[in-house]
């Protein structure tokens, strides 16, 4: 595996994950990730030439249904869980 710059990687992972860590957490998480990834490199030795990746146990196909709105009556019940709402909609901080 190629060498990883951990400072940059942690910053990138913070962006991908939408999670910020404190400096201390960053150090600790980087340390743990290094250990875990080093262990996972064991997979390198496994010969998987010609093996199809298996994302699912059964060869299930897409399951389709008619595009009809169901359970529209739950609108209010769903909105009830919103941390902030206004006029029947989710309220979020200013976006622009």
């Amino acid at each position, binding site marked *: 595996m190629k060498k990883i710059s951990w400072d940059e990687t942690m910053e990138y992972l913070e962006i991908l994950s939408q999670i910020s860590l404190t400096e201390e957490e960053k150090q600790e998480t980087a340390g743990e990730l290094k250990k875990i990834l080093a262990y996972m490199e064991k997979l390198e030795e496994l010969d998987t030439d010609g093996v199809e990746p298996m994302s699912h*146990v059964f060869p299930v196909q897409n399951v389709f249904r008619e595009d009809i709105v169901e359970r529209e009556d739950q609108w209010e019940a769903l909105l009830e869980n919103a941390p902030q709402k206004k006029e029947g909609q989710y309220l979020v901080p200013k976006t622009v």
Partner: protein
Amino acid sequence: MGEEYLTWTAGELARKIRKGEIRPSEAVEASLLQIERMEPQIGAFLQIDREGALARAEEVEQGIRSGKYQGPFAGVPAAVKDNICTKGMETTCASRILSGFYPPYDACAVEKLKEAGIIILGKTNMDEFAMGSTTETSARKVTKNPWNTGHVPGGSSGGSCAAVAADECFIALGSDTGGSIRQPSSFCGVTGIKPTYGTVSRYGLIAYASSLDQIGPIGKDVADCARMLSLLAGQDRRDSTSLKRETLDFEEDLAGDIRGMKVGIPKEYLDEGIDPEVRDALKKTMEILKERGASVEEFSLGMTEYVIPSYYIIASAEASSNLARFDGVKYGYRSPHADSLHEMYKMTRSEGFGTEVKRRIFLGSFVLSSGYYDAYYLKALKARAVIKEAFDRAFAAYDVLLGPAAPQTAPKIGESLSDPLQMYLGDLYTAAVNLAGLPAISVPCTVSKAGLPIGIQLIGDCLQEKKIIRAAAAFEKERGIFPKAYSGTKRGKI
């Protein structure tokens, strides 16, 4: 009143209720009283719906009389893991980020409980988002093992297993992504089934790793779990991965006739890293299965060293994607400290998720990120195929595989979280089953010298629940009544 009910199995209790010897409300009251007694020491529940359960007991009693509820568990008090949605009852995955989430709908499995007249007492503690092996990553509370409160109950379904072991409920729902039903069942001396992937609808199960997650029963014996699985199983259009299967009827299998059954023990499972007492438990199980007429032999399963790397890459990758939905907009916690939308997402997630969840989201984001995708994620998917092939070869020769549920008994509270990798390695015997989509059952076998239960695991080929239940029933009959968690003196009394 009610003391003697508590140690009955769910099936025994339901029979008495059907005969009119006990009212559902009496059973609920007995459970609530036991919860009151045990919870200060055990802490299995995050929430108890006292009024709801008592009101429901009255309805169910009428329903039993009118013939509406005729199932095997009508009137039985049960508990539900906190990652399974219950309408109007807070469902948090033991995470701060979902605090205050009251689902407007029931999970499919919960609908089935309700349709069967089962009474839900409350929600049980778990590792946050089911990520953990001890229930210690819960953001809410620490659950203790009813056998010894200095020890963890295992995880992630630790609350459900502890509640059953402490007789706070008669049966419970758990979920299993890499062993989260089977390992805590082993640690708490109860029985648990992880069904074939797709057997129980995941609708309303808050996703951790969707290609691995399954809901399953946790109970006091094999019969309770088998019958509960029959009740839970079924194709559901709201879960496109759920399978159309024949009706699952295990009554014949519960007789435990295993004459001629071929059982294999992967010899890798007996290798170093396993506690000698757990190995002895397996040997004892082997002897019992032989006595009942099965042939048992060791064989090499192969590929076992790739299970943990492959499992943690896939599970974390799926988790990093599944948990992206928790952003403070639609439900649960929102950080009060943000002024802009993106800051709100980031702060909500940073404040709302615990350490282990963050670690797995980071790991998942890493293995999916460009430059590393092929080396980690894609490689893990290929390893998964190779692991599945190893099981296919094994099931060409054997009906059932026997193994441990965990390498040792329940660790002490506070010992596991400091070394995550070490904790991950404990999933060796269980995670492979999820990767391959197989059914497996964990059954209590014996009690260690230190007084902690040891369970064994029986693994079947896809869709072959009947075989593992038959083997488990045979083993259970020969093993005899398993001792109670909270010492012999208290047995049958509250």
